[in-house]
């Protein structure tokens, strides 16, 4: 069968599966809508958490980023997995014992304050929308490249699917579709990785192939060859980075702590029956996540190696089909600087800025560019986000593998989008409407509000997907920085420091949030020219500043609570209760 037919078939089948599950698991009560009734077995919750967590960024972008940044990419690998250790040991079991529906629920009750609850809702909404915009964009990219529809149509289709199962099924529908989506996405990630690992190193396990010798008979290790080639071309070695140690440290810490403070992940631990299940579930989730996360750096190394081998000194006319396919949608570009008709790849920007085509074809048939010239030997522009999607084609794998990757990318983006939309709608219907403004609303009404807010959230997310703020990729730093500097300390103190009172927690959240927000906005939007190590505070980039924001939050919270009245007795008892795994 044609690759294109296979893609339609795989994507169509996976969508039919998700819709079928949504119909089967329709939610009838708020408890089912918010936390799937609290009856999800820990193993399934682990899978759902993994799908919820691994977004278009993990599936599509991460290996590409590591391919082009080598060791520096470790911040994502350690940051986005190490956070689960914090979640499992410091938060999940206690929040499950507390046993409400949302993260602002905990903040509001523990700090006996509507103000604290509302601040938590604001943090949650900012974090979640930032994230969801990127997911809808990811859906659009996959559709436009693989289904040959326009990006906007892709976003509409994605919105329709998410709308259907998030609005109908709530957490219950989302949980079981996420289980299916995990299976699709992990299979789609591993199959090409295993094929490519065998082709390059002869070892079918990518994690081992990563450290093996090349299958070309040279006896040289893959990483050694890659380091050598990259250094020759003027890049940093794959196993070395270019970021400073303190920045790597701060970014890793911000991503870890941010992970532990992300509302859509935390809320998944409310769906299991018991405290002991919450502990186990975090462990299962990390296993399911690690399968992809330990494969990703191997895929990254294979992709960089394959890319250089295929492209370097190849005549443009002799390049494989994929090179021209991606060039045609503007994610690859080539300017023949030395006029030899061959592609030269080296360090440095090939031209100024992102490619802008003038609509004409050059001598070899390439798309001509209007960008300003740069003074280096590099002739190739390649968007990092395409490496995972293009890799099966680069390696010449069969059509069904390419179709599988398309379905996997969509599963990753849709599962995360649905999880995020759910926490947004829950916090509006439950925390704002029910707990803050209209406390006497009936369960039936609350469920209706939840469905309406889910619908509104889908539409807003779709809007951002179609009209992406030009900075989607940049704002991702927001989500983690804000979660690390606002929500995490409030949760941590709420459990481990009985004396923490509402004054301390609120002051901490506000200063942490304001500081982090201001720092990111300052460097990303106000003075983007000064966004470099020479101007950063202690050499820490906006991506890592959430770590400093968290420290500031904690210092302020501890100081303020020291000078204000301790929390009332019933709150101190509440803290004792959540530390005790069974009912007293």
């Amino acid at each position, binding site marked *: 069968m044609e690759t294109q037919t296979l893609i339609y078939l795989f994507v169509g089948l996976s969508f039919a599966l998700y819709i079928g599950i949504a119909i089967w698991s329709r939610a009838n009560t708020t408890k089912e809508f918010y936390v799937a009734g609290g009856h999800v077995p820990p193993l399934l919750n682990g899978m759902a958490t993994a799908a919820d967590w691994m977004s278009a960024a993990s599936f599509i972008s991460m290996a590409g980023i590591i391919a082009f940044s080598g060791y520096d*990419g470790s911040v994502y690998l350690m940051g986005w997995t190490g956070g689960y*250790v914090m979640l499992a040991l410091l938060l999940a079991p206690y929040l499950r014992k507390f046993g409400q529906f949302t993260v602002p629920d905990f903040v509001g009750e523990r700090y006996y304050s509507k103000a604290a609850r509302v601040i938590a809702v604001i943090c949650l909404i900012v974090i979640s929308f930032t994230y969801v915009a990127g997911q809808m964009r990811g859906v659009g990219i996959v559709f436009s490249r693989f289904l040959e529809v326009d990006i906007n149509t892709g976003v509409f289709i994605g919105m329709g699917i998410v709308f259907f199962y998030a609005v109908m099924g709530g957490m219950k529908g989302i949980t079981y579709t996420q289980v299916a989506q995990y299976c699709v996405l992990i299979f789609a990630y591993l199959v090409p990785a295993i094929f490519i690992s065998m082709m390059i190193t002869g070892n079918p396990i990518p994690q081992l192939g990563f450290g093996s010798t090349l299958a070309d008979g040279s006896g040289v290790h893959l990483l050694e060859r890659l380091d050598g080639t990259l250094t020759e071309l003027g890049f940093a070695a794959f196993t070395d980075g270019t970021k400073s140690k303190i920045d790597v440290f701060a970014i890793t810490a911000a991503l870890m702590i941010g992970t532990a403070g992300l509302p859509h992940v935390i809320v998944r631990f409310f769906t299991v029956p018991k405290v002991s299940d919450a502990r186990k579930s*975090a462990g299962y989730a990390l296993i399911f996540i690690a399968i992809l996360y330990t494969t990703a750096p191997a895929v990254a190394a294979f992709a960089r190696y394959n890319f250089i081998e295929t492209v370097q000194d190849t005549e443009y006319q002799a390049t494989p089909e994929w090179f021209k396919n991606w060039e045609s949608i503007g994610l690859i570009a080539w300017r023949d600087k030395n006029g030899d008709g061959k592609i030269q790849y080296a360090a440095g920007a090939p031209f100024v800025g992102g490619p802008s085509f003038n609509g004409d074809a050059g001598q070899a048939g390439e798309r001509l560019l209007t960008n300003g010239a740069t003074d280096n030997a590099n002739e190739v522009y390649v968007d990092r986000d395409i490496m995972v999607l293009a890799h099966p084609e680069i390696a010449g794998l069969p059509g069904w593998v390419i179709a599988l990757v398309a379905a996997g990318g969509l599963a990753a983006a849709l599962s995360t989008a649905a999880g995020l939309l759910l926490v947004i709608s829950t916090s509006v219907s439950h925390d704002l409407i029910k707990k803050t403004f209209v406390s006497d609303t009936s369960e039936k009404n609350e469920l209706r509000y939840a469905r309406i807010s889910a619908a509104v959230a889908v539409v807003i997310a779709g809007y951002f997907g179609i009209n992406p703020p030009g900075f989607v990729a940049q704002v991702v730093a927001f989500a983690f920085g804000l979660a690390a500097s606002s929500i995490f300390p409030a949760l941590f103190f709420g459990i481990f420091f009985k004396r923490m009172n509402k004054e301390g927690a609120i002051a901490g959240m506000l200063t942490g949030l304001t500081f982090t927000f201001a720092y990111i906005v300052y460097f990303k939007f106000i003075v983007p020219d000064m966004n470099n190590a020479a101007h950063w505070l202690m050499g820490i980039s906006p991506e890592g500043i959430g770590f400093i924001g968290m420290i500031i939050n904690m210092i302020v919270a501890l100081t303020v609570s020291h000078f204000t009245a301790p929390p009332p007795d019933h709150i101190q008892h509440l803290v*004792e209760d959540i530390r005790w795994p069974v009912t007293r």
Partner: protein
Amino acid sequence: MSDAPSDVTAAAKRDTNAYWKANLKLVGGLMAVWFLVSFGAGILFVDALNTIQIGGFKLGFWFAQQGSIFIFIALIFIYVYAMHRLDLKYGLDDKGEPDSYDVMEGE
């Protein structure tokens, strides 16, 4: 969320404290390992460890991109097992526990 009964005996109080202390000690130990394998081996001491080559990997690089993740998984399961033992020791097995959302509905 029921308030703790006012007639908590001194023994029960001691139990509560001992359980929490043991819990903190366990979590503290595991978090120390968590810090060492990621921020330690993967970042702070990566250059020193990179002088050691195991198979095709420089050791520091391996910790940063592979090893730390495997150890994270082990840490969570050690925690699950050790907490289960601790719960049994204090008679806190939650096997017979009612689902707390069902309890909430009864309130």
